């Protein structure tokens, strides 16, 4: 009954793949029904058909970044498409970096705790069954080590992030100007005829 939203499945599916992870809960009947508007997350979220805005979701459990489901308008201009693709690509890139970063951090932290406890001759779990932890001062060694190990990686990430952020904002500005211009132009044509 409602008009079908144009589906750019080819573009959205890499995004779906980017967001699918160990916690994937794909509901098959949802994916089947919503084939026309492919979900941006494999949890099956689809925005309402009448909506013509982007939708932002809860933080991803690995990267802590909030995924955005981008709205594809019917009369999307080349500039708007360029912006949307840039935003989608930046989102995937960011997602990958931070998910990897956080998972590496957790894994290395666990290894560090394990090795320190072993060196001390302690078990991983205390007598009461709780997980044994190190105090803040011992963890400080790990934090310092982790930070210096990842310094170069962060430098590259920061440089790329600043470039992308500026580019996205610049294109957002261009798109906004284009929209304003398009709104004014038909009026000009009407007044001239």
């Amino acid at each position, binding site marked *: *009954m*409602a008009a079908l939203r144009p589906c750019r499945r080819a573009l959205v599916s890499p995004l779906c793949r980017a967001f699918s992870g160990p916690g994937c*809960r794909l*509901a098959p*009947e949802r994916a089947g*029904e919503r084939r026309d508007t492919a979900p941006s*997350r494999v*949890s*099956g*979220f689809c*925005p*309402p*058909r*009448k*909506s013509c*805005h*982007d*939708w*932002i*979701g*809860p*933080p991803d459990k690995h*990267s*802590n*970044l*909030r995924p*955005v*489901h981008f709205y594809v308008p019917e009369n999307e201009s080349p500039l708007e498409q360029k912006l949307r693709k840039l935003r989608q690509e930046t989102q995937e890139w*960011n997602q990958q970096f*931070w998910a990897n*970063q*956080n998972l590496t*951090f957790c894994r290395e932290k666990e290894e560090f705790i394990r090795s320190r406890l072993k060196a001390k001759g302690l078990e991983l779990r205390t007598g009461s069954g709780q997980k044994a932890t190190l105090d*803040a*001062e011992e*963890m*400080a060694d*790990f*934090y*310092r080590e*982790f*930070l*210096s190990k*990842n*310094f170069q*990686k*962060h*430098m590259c*990430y*920061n440089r790329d*992030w*600043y470039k992308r*952020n500026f580019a*996205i*904002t610049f294109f*957002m*500005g261009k798109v*906004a100007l284009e929209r304003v211009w398009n709104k004014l132009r038909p009026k000009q044509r009407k007044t001239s005829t």
Partner: protein
Amino acid sequence: MAASPHTLSSRLLTGWVGGCVWYLEGRAMQESPREFMHLFRSVRKQWMTFQHFTFLRRMYVTQLNRSLNQQVKRKPEPTASPFLERSSLAQAKAETCAMRPLPPPHLPLSRKPNDKELLELESASVIEGSLDVGRETKDEKQWKEMKLHLDDLPGVLARLSKIKLTALVVSTTSAGFALAPGPFDLPCFLLTFVGTGLASCAANSINQFFEVPFDSNMNRTKNRPLVRGQISPLLAVSFATCCAVPGVALLTWGVNPLTGALGVFNIFLYTCCYTPLKKISIANTWVGAVVGAIPPVMGWTAATGSLDAGAFLLGGILYSWQFPHFNALSWGLREDYSRGGYCMMSVTHPALCRRVALRHCLALIGLSAAAPVLDVTTWTFPAISLPINLYISYLGFRFYVDADRKSSRKLFFCSLWHLPLFLLLMLTCKRPPGATCAGGEPRG
């Protein structure tokens, strides 16, 4: 219709569900009265409709999840009706999806389980799958439309501009203005107040614009507007520009060019030096301390038009104060800083971090003694400020020795009340006009 090895449990569930329904009706009444009244009128005709049950089940699940998890509180969506949300069973889902645009009173109530058995079976199967669906529904509910509502805009902009920090910055500027010698010029004061406030809003907005993925990953900053998608980066930058331009213009042409130049310099220092430097080197803390020191200097230059000794003293006081304040705060954030790639003393050079904090606590005592020497205050000031200076130095010493979270928190919270009280005492001991310290000419 499944055979019922679980008939007993389903009967128990029915009773439990009945109790839940009664409870949830009361809760739903509080939360969405308008939708609920529509619901209630229709329910009067049929005791339990499928949609009613589904709505209440979802309410129960969201309430349960909310109480179990520490989540950011969602704002209620004024236009969304609970009837228009999808349910778990495919058929009802297809109906509600198809009927999404229709308002609630027109929804055909297709499922009328007058039959008690049908209700029991439905309740059993629905509740069994409810947690799973509840999670999905909860996930779906957490998706927000990225549409800016005008009535949300003031709150969003206030958070974007870190309005509380801006208020603190502006109060240090006001203290600088008030402590400067000469008669109190109210129009000039107001222009300085507004101009500095706008400049601070601009700088804070740009800072948040740069830091979105990092802010998402730190507990302290994960609810900022750009992180939550409440505002677009373009709008954030536009807002910053709309604050910076009038702010600096006000300071340059409304007050004096020196104050305007200091304002521009401070915005540049904060956004283009401090913010990127946070990922590069621990020197960011010293740069950040200068950023904090400039506002009171601006207040002084606004009142006097010149950068004299008093301005540097005030700047020095704020500069020194930044270290116990920030170093103590950063002590508890070491894990987040390490994971996020922030180069902070607390992570890379912990001993230096504590040493610097203590050093600057002691410096505050020295600076308070310098105030009467520079004719900013009388000699009463170092005397009456000694107790609070000694106290913060004591906490700095404890932090230096103990190096634990408890001492860092005590030092941080002390710094929060120490600064306003210190500035207030300075104001009360301000050197009266015409009086001088030993060896000076009387001021005209």
